[in-house]
């Protein structure tokens, strides 16, 4: 077989229980860049501002058409409530979400843990990466952040996205993933 063995073939060919404690793998999980909290706050605040503007435009139109009445007042309070909630979330949520996101890259591949209520663990085993990108939006750029996108040949999750890494980390990670990728891997 003309395959490079850049990582050792263990006894795994005989038994799936290879001599490694599963708990060892729990080490070396990494957090996202702390700047990502502020970045998330900013983007969420921007979205909330747009929604607020929309809500007030709606209220003004209602007021011009129907005048000031009890219905307007109740809608006004509802809108205020929603806006408070949105800004509150924009302020608090990124930190919560940050605590629930971690990733690691080890000999077995990339693993990502995400999600506060709906929690997801996803792993891309070594050698399954078709290609990897790093992208950066304008606001991300001002925070020095980047997004890593890993493409596999899979169908349901053909691209795995990790957003909120330091741009330098993201680039390094991409380079590592690409060098880890075995060119001779065939689907």
């Amino acid at each position, binding site marked *: *077989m*003309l*395959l490079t*063995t850049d*990582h050792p*073939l*263990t006894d*795994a*060919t*005989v*038994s*799936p*229980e*290879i001599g*490694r404690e*599963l708990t060892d*793998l729990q080490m070396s999980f990494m957090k996202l860049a702390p700047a990502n909290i502020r970045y998330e706050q900013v983007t969420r605040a921007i979205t909330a501002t747009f929604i607020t503007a929309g809500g007030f435009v709606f209220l003004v139109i209602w007021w011009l058409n129907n005048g000031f009445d009890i219905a307007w007042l109740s809608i006004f309070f509802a809108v205020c409530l929603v806006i408070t909630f949105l800004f509150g979330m924009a302020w608090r949520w990124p930190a919560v979400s940050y605590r629930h996101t971690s990733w690691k890259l080890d*000999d*077995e*591949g990339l*693993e990502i843990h995400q*999600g506060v*209520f*709906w*929690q*997801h*663990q*996803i*792993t*891309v*085993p*070594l*050698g*399954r990466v*078709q*290609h990897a990108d790093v992208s950066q939006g304008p606001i991300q750029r001002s925070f020095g952040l980047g997004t890593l996108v890993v493409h*596999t*040949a*899979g*169908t*349901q*999750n*053909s691209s*795995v996205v990790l957003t909120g890494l330091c741009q330098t980390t993201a680039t390094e990670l991409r380079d590592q993933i690409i060098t880890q990728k075995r*060119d*001779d*891997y*065939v*689907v």
Partner: protein
Amino acid sequence: MSFEVDPPESDPQRTPSGNLEDGQTIFETTRLQEPVAQADGDKTPSVPPAQMSFLHPTSLIFDFLAHAKTYIVPALIGLFYGATEGQGFLLIISAVIIIPTLLHSIFSYFTLRYCISDNQLIVREGIFNRNIRTVPLARIQNIDSVQNPLHRLFKVAEVKIETASGTKPEAVLRVLSVDKMNSLRSAIFESPAHLESNNPTGESPAMEDGQSLPSANVPPNIPENLLKIPLSWLFKAGLASNRGMVLVSISLGIFFQFTNDKFNFSVKGIADLIRSSVDSTEVTETPQSPLVVFGLSLLAILTVLALIRLLGVGWYVLRFYGYQLQRNGNDLRISCGLWTKVSASIPVQRIQFISIHRSLLMRWWGMAAIRIETAGGDSSQNENSTESISKRWFIPVIAEDRVAVIMQSLRPDLFWDETNFDFKTVSPKTTQRLIRISCIQSAMLGLIGLPISLAWGWIPGALLLPIFLLYAFKKGRSMQYARGSNEVVYRSGIFYRKTSITFFDKIQTLHVNQSPFDRRWGMATLCVDTAAAGPAGHRMQIAYLDEHFANDEFKRLRINAAGREPVFG
């Protein structure tokens, strides 16, 4: 999706731009902008024109039909009416539609040429944009052919040359004579480059019991028969399937399409039709006793059901008559069909996912169906088309005792014995959780019913509760998961049972998902994603697993998936 096909040592044949860093292109397509006047072959790059072969002359007909099939019927009707009724504009419209296709067919017949040279298949085509397609022989995965009765009349076949990339065939040769197709096939499959790429080690995968499977050691032009499906199996499969239902719905659609004047409301129309036909029979002359009416309608329903099943049998026989599965080196060859004969080949190492389906009737008869998924090409949308046979309908029906042998030939390192796997059921709390869900469902139904009728509205909900409960009880036990030394097996389904298997080296990504409800019950969903998940109609998403078990399996599979070299290929 496209993947690198062969080991890097075949690089000398690869064109420089065919580098597959991103898995984008497998062949090199050269486009030369040339006026049509020069398309006569004097500017053929790298190949002298003498070596190039034309397609079979009947290509003119088949190419025209293939392009015109979407509108040929209305166009012909238009021509007919235009000619008989003297409607000149209809004639012109039809001509405007037909003539360009005709011209296109003629041009493409005279411009398409192909040859094999320097370990490459070269197909040159094009009217205005000259397109030269170079496919290295080592990359060619399948040579599929389709022969409908018209093809057979002229002793020709439509040939599709496939590589692992994308969903479309790399080159379609429409049409070649059967002799030429066979010589092309043997020229490609017996070329040194192809043999080398498909069996890089040259060693034969040995079976556990000492028998060795045919491999490159055996001359590849001696195919080994693996399976022939007798007519009786097809009958059983047809009777067990709901294929006929599809045909009925199609024919109903056509029926109402053409009779929409008479039946404005389809249901009312049918009712009127039945009433009028009943009125005209002699039943009305005797006083209609409820028993007679009941008996007659029961008979009618039974007849319709029997007809549907018979249609299913017809579908199976038409499509899979003379089904034959052969093994030729590392390729599996399928050929079948009564009117339209299809032959396809599947390289064993491309198989990503195997799924065994057993419906209730099939289980009673000791039969099963095997579906496979291969990388490149997804035919989940059109399971009726001839192209989908190799992917969607790998083995339409097989006796239970032959399954193990076939599974072994699909994956030599797999020892298939379903009773031998250490199947784990999902979390023991699943039944409880599903029962709670069904109670909530029937309570909701009852609550919806109450405002409609205070006295009777709750009854549907209450009646459905035992059914829901039974379903919950059965479902909790039907989902089973096992991890072997080399593979992951998942089975599910109460009436229609599906058992799917994939291999560590085919796993693309792994997930564990946990919703808030899952956390409350200490459960999680484990998903195993492979390339080309879909056509087999069974996804490896194992819900309701115990969360510790799911996390453990996630970690173990992760190690296994990464720590394993691709087994072959």
